[in-house]
């Protein structure tokens, strides 16, 4: 029955991390891009950050994997996200229910995907999700308009917005369906010089 437990603890590279506040810590650690040595600290850091958003909700002890989710309104108040025009979308993208409530797992997920060392591929996918406002797996004109209005705080006139959207689709749309599929998006982003340097968050 608890065969797995026994097995896991035998792993020689886990044993030293038994003090971790979370049962699932080791896999999380590996799943993150954090190297073994420092991951404890970083994971704990993440946990700390998560907990400080709502100290009364989030327990210190994660041994039992409590099912706790923090709402979007709390999460977007993090200094890392506060100024981001896409903060709502980021949080929603990483939440499992799409409403913006993040469990700790999702939280870790978010920062591991946005961390500096995560791969371009991964970032591209999440970026695509983030910019796909209506979640139809295509970035269509409507999404682009929303993106622009968020980026410029609505400073552009509607004609200008339309022009920009049309141009962007014309540039990146390879299959001619007037919306950007992931393949289009990936193709476009892979040539962008500063995507990797701008699409990451440090915590």
């Amino acid at each position, binding site marked *: 029955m608890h065969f797995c*437990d026994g097995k896991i603890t035998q792993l020689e590279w886990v044993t030293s991390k038994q003090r971790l506040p979370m049962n699932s810590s080791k896999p999380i650690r590996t799943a993150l891009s954090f190297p*073994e040595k420092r991951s404890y600290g970083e994971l704990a850091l993440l946990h700390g950050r998560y907990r400080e958003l709502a100290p009364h909700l989030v327990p210190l002890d994660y041994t039992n994997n409590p099912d706790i989710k923090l709402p979007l309104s709390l999460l977007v108040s993090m200094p890392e996200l506060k100024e981001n025009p896409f903060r709502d979308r980021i949080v929603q993208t990483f939440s499992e229910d799409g409403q913006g409530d993040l469990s700790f797992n999702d939280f870790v997920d978010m920062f591991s995907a946005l961390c500096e*060392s995560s791969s371009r591929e991964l970032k591209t996918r999440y970026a695509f999700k983030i910019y796909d406002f209506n979640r139809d*797996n295509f970035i269509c004109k409507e999404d682009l308009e929303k993106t622009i209005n968020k980026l*410029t705080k609505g400073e552009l006139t509607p004609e200008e917005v339309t022009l920009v959207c049309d*141009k962007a689709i014309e540039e990146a749309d390879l299959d001619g369906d007037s919306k950007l599929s992931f393949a289009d998006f990936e193709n*476009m*982003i892979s040539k962008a010089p500063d995507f990797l340097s*701008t699409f990451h968050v440090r915590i």
Partner: protein
Amino acid sequence: MPRKTDVSQLEDVGIDIDTELSNSDEEAPKRAKKGGRGGGRGGRGRGKKAASEEEEDEDEVPAPRGRRGGNRKAARKGKDGDDEDADDDDDEDGKGPKKRKKGGKGKEGDEESEEEEDKKGAKGKKKGGKKGKDEEEDEEEGGKGDKGATGKKGAKGKGKAKEDDKKKKKKGGGSSSSNSDEEDSMSEGEMAKLMEEVEEKKKLIATIRNKPWRMRRRLTHLRESQQFVDKFEGALGKGKGRKWYAYKVMMKKKWIKFQRDFENFRTACIPWERKIKEVESHFGSSVASYFIFLRWMYGMNLVLFGFTFGLVVIPEVLMGLPYGSIPRKTVPRAEADSAQDYSVLMDFNGYCKYSVLFYGFYNNQRTIGLLQFRLPLSYLMVGIGTFGYSLMVVIRTMAKNADVGGGDGEDGEFTFAWKMFTSWDYLIGNAETADNKYASITTSFKESIVDEQENQKDENIHLRRFLRVLANFMIICSLGGSGYLIYFVVKRSQEFASRDDLSWYEKNELEIIMSLLGLVCPPLFETIAELEEYHPRIALKWQLGRIFALFLGNLYTFLFALFDEVNTKLELEGSIRNASLWNMKEYYANFTLNSNDTDATPPPMHPSDIIRGPCWETGVGIEFVKLTVSDIQVTYLTILIGDFARAVIVRFLNYCWCWDLEAGFPSYGEFDISGNVLGLVFNQGMIWMGAFYAPGLVGINVLRLLSSMYYQCWAVMATNVPHERVFKASKSNNFYMGLLLLILFLSLLPVVYTIMTLPPSFDCGPFSGKAKMFDVIMETIDLDLPAFLGTLFSYAANPGLIIPAVLLMVLAIYYLNSVSEAYQGANMELKKKMQMARDEEKNRRNNTESTDQVQKDLEDLLPNRSLAPEPEKEEPPPKPTKVKPGAAGKKDLQKDVTLASPNPNVRGPVNRPPGPRGPGPMPGHPGGPGPGGRGQGRPGPPPR
């Protein structure tokens, strides 16, 4: 393999297998019916293992399993409904144990357990699994709402808590059984296979973070594969290099961090980067380009300053004779009284004139100080080196800029898309920075929009051409007119110079005309340029070029006047020299006359009493310094009054004015790019010309540029408004650089001319006493270098050698020019090809479907879906179809049908027309087997 080796084991394994295969079948219920049908067929197909049916299999095989799984699960759900959440886990879990078991089974089992590659039999199945997944995901799209509504919600909450337990239990069971199985029979091939799998798992562990899965799924995958690796690595030998790997990862991270810090440090070292960025974000790159140019100029002048002060001024101050020791370092007695007056000092006379700032102060001692510093030589070398260095830097920068592309903002295919998706910096966490970023993104969008509109403008080409010709004609007329006016005025002033009964206007006519021209012409040009309707960036270039031509007149009159002055001074010099010598003699004669003691040596004459020559070099230096200083004053005052006062008035008088001052007539000033750039360029020309005669000028200029940076940055942010059409500066500043190069050349000419032809003053400066300034080089060659070098130089100076050298250079230039042209041609060709390739790609993609794994994963990430409990997939149907396809298939089919209908999830939309998938072997699909068949087997892309 006999089906009933071990019932219990089968049970376990069956569970695993099913879950694994159906992992993607999360949405299976929706097409339960179809699945059922397919299942029957699939079973048959499997029994036959006919190649021709492979496509079919691919589609169908997994489905029945999923279905069965679903049924099973439905039953089980009754028992423990909280398992759902672990669905993902289970899928993954299934893989390992199943494989292991298969491995134990033997040959056939091996094949089936093959994960990704080869093996015919397995392939069908595997592909099928994948396909099934595909379909599901597609359907999932449609049926999302339904699914979300169904079972998922309830199960989720509870599931999480127990997830671990459940999974472990199951896994434990599965793996233990398989374990024993495996130990039973382990051959070489199996070992190899196992090894392979372990490696695969390891790879998965290594790359798991790059999988766009939710954390939960990642965790389970990870756990599962770790377990697997752990278990079987023991059998196959210890896992190696994990520590090493961890170490490597850590070092890599540290290295990245170091690089980042270093990069930050480097950026922090670039002066005014933030200031300029701020300006850029509000005023666009065109205004920022001025400040970048200013910064570049500052850098260059700093180097010039270093040379001049390090090699000329400081040695003279430290090691040369002090003030008052010799005549050239002393204020003459006639001027001594007023030498400290403010007005005199402001004119750079008095003490200023006899200071280290100017040429005349330097002594012609060949070596000074303990170090035997050869000051005259150093002075000449620095004078020439200034030009050499400037030329080198300007040309190198131009070359580098040209390398960057020099394109006028046309940077490839994805201008707008990149702006949209990569321009926000997710690192920004500071409100002010964020505001700047918003502004800069808006500005850059506007810039691109202007470019785009310019491209789209369809125009009456003939009218446009006519207007442009007309505008150029008018501007040439006005340039010619002003040129003639300047010429006329200069001529007249020469006439006036010989008269003394001049009115105020006649005295200052030249200056007045010049400033009037400078005041009137640029706005006039700008107005005329409206006719041309150029893109603002190109219009700016034209404007710069035209005003530059106008200002050349300024320069010309200035130089003209200067040479006049120098010539008169040179004429004077001869007589003064005689007077000075005569005076000296007189002094000594008087001394012996007055004192009876003929033997007594007369005390040396006081240096301030000696008659001086006019020292034209210092005169020229003073002219330039005065000009520079007045230029600084005018510039700063213009900003203060023209921009700041105007802004204040507009801002505050607006409260009590009859019309809207801010939007109406005076409004706020725009930043005058062309005026400022030209001011900077001409100022630099003055510096280059004057630096030889006034070493201190470089220092003044450095101060000016430094203060100008802060002052103008402040002024532009505080008092100016962005241009109406914010436009993108061309990526390289090469146009500015070109102007600078032209000015450099123009200022090089007079200086070199004076150095090479005019005799230096007899009593001041480092070259006094020599016939020509460059004699100091000859002297050094003769005295300090070995003799053979002297002869070498004399050979090198032979015209017979120089003319061929010049010819050679001309040839080289011609050759390089043609090469670069060829490259340019090749470049254009390549660009065209790239464009064509892109179009081709577009067309190609138009014709192919883009459903691939990536899209799948993405869909998997969609909210609500990945969370879905996917109730059916967890279920392990008795491991059937695969092994006993023929008979079991039939039976299962029956069961499926009966069990499927009560399944609540079934009501998802059926996306596939059921027609073509009749029970018969492909009645609706005449398509042949083979690779093409695969595509057909899949009924086209699901509707999106």
